């Protein structure tokens, strides 16, 4: 997989990535590790079970991971979702909004997943 191309496809400046993550082979390793991470699944399951606290944690972690790897579109989507979930009370949350934001996250995640594998 051409990492440089991968980043360009998702709209991220590869030089930035390199500057932060330093070595190309490491980036490859990290991306694969990223896929192994289970937080995306956690997020989905939590939302299904309406466990918003759990969902928040998962979304938050996902955000962190994406930021670390400069997966900007996913990071932004995850940030939006986790920010929305932060108040954590089921009453104030609009399930439709949650669903919308989750969809965004899902889309980005799947895109990246496909590109990497």
């Amino acid at each position: 997989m051409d990492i440089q191309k991968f980043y360009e496809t998702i709209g991220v400046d590869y030089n930035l990535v390199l500057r932060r993550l330093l070595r190309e082979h490491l980036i490859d390793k990290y991306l694969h590790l990223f896929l192994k991470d289970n937080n995306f699944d956690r997020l989905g399951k939590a939302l299904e079970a309406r466990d918003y606290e759990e969902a928040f944690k998962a979304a938050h972690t996902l955000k962190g991971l994406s930021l670390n790897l400069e997966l900007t579109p996913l990071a932004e989507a995850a940030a939006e979702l986790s920010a929305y979930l932060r108040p954590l009370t089921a009453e104030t949350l609009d399930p439709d909004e949650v669903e919308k934001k989750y969809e965004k996250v899902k889309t980005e995640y799947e895109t990246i997943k496909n590109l990497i594998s």
Partner: protein
Amino acid sequence: MKSTVQKKTILIVDDAELNRCLLSDILQDDYNIVEACNGKEAIEILKHNDASISLILLDLIMPEMTGFDVLALMQKNHWHETIPVVIISSENSAEYIEKSYEYGVVDYISRPFDPSIVTQRVKNTIILYSKQKELESLIKEQVIEKERNNALMINILSTIVEFRNGESGLHVIRIRIITEILMEALRKRYQEYSMDESHIALISNAAALHDIGKNEIPEEILNKPGKLTYEEFEIMKTHSACGAEMLENLRFGNDEELVKYARQICRWHHERWDGNGYPDHLKGDDIPIAAQIVSLADVYDALVSERVYKPPYTHEQAIQMILNGECGMFNPKLIACLKEVSGHLEQAVKLRSKDPGHLFDVNQLSREIVQKKGVKLSDRTLFLLEQERTKYQFLTSITDEVLFEYDFSTDTITFSDRCRDEFNIPTIVTELFSHNNLRGIIDKEDFQKLTELVYSASPASPTFQTQLIMTTSDGSKEWYEIVGRTLWSNDDQNEQLYSCVGRIANIHRQTIEGRRLEELAQKDSLTNLFNRDAAQKVVGHILETRNQAPGLMILFDLDNFRELNENNGHLFGDQILKHVARLAENNIRKMDIAARVGGNEFMVYLHEVVSEEFMLMYCRMLSIALKQCYQGTEYTISIGAAAYPKDGTSYSELFTHAGQALYESKHSGKNCCTIYRNDGTMQAAFEGAVPE
């Protein structure tokens, strides 16, 4: 010495493997990395490795235990004081950052992080904290050194004791080690005995003294190769009470914890758990735990060592005998501890004993001390000491004052040499308070007052001063002034009064002189009667205090005094005044007052006169007494009198009325006496007689 090449260890705590990986890759070239995927794991790692971890990189949002939970636990266990924590989180809200700092976090790095920043910050933090640790270990080294010296001293002393008992110094060292091992086991299993590190150190040191009472036991009994007779055993048993008594009679250090433990151990290391021990038949936990442990250690060591009366048993045999109850009854908890350590006890004792080289040193030193080859003070110190002594002696010898120094802990007072001449007492007096040993020279009340004065001093105001009467060497009582200063030791919390120094100066002559001068100021210089001011004061005072007793104020003067002066000269006039004053003085009682209140005016105040008739009679008497011839010159006197309280209740009232009476006398031809009446008329008392 720690090798400087050794890498420091960093603990990374984050639930996402990717995050841990990222950090690990940045740091692993320079540090050892340990990872934990959640808070719980992190705590487990810290519990077992808290000394080796130099820094923690901590995520906040984690399952089961969040970063904050970890921080809270760290605070509780005081790990946060020695291990710096850096938070790495994508949480950027001020709230989280603030909260982290409240928990004592050192730094906060947010995601996405820059590897160079992480490296730099980690490095800086670790350097900062390692300096701290270096200082701490320096201090620890010092403490260990000091403790080792203490232990050495105690070992030497107890080895000397052991020599006499025919045992080697090894017994003492082994008892110490076994006691230590048992206490460590006790601490782990039974928290109720509150056994902490300082107790373990103190008790194992004190244990070395457990058999000092054996000094009092005759050698034939101590070293008898066979079984002791009943009488011999009874004597042997006294060594526990004896040893404790020796420690009770210490002049200093009686309250030291070490000594307290030593006393307990000495006295009760032969008590039994069931109360059948000696000397006091203490039972169960009435026996102090220190004594219980040393008792067990002593029994074990006696079993596995050779003695004059038996060969050594093996470790296993000894344990078995103790567990079977063949060698005394012990606290079941202690037995449990013994069982627990039994496996490694033998090796541990061997290991912990100092190596043979050291042992010989201890023995060597002890032998030398026993043969009285003491250690010398440095020559220079001795010389300086001698100089100070010479200076002090000279300075104290050239002064008349007696210098003193009192030590509270020994209740002893020391005086400079002059005390022998001044008070006929020795230079050192012990038991000052306990036996009131200065009662020969200071009486009880004064001493009590002096004591209170000294005790009322404080570090802020340490000096004191007083005057009192002391008995001199020839038995006379004279006035002395004591000036002193209290000396305080500064411990951390409260200042202890430990000594006071000062001087005792004879002020008798000054005091007497002072009093004399005071008196002088009150007297008229020519006649030595009270002067006008003094008269007012004294009589006024009498009037204030004696409200009931009637009194009589008499004013009189010499008639035609000016003529007398002109005819015979002023000197002669003075002489007559003196003469009359003398007569007046001689004709009054001790409690009456005679005064010269003017150039040629005298006052006599009689108090407690009986009645008015007496008044008259007295005036007549006085006029007769006062009128005499002086060296051939005749003179007469005019008198005026007023009574108290009839004619006035204050000095000025009486004085005015008596003066008015006197005026009347003067204008009635002189040489007569007038008594005041407050209705305006005066009572002419009598005509004066003409002198013979």
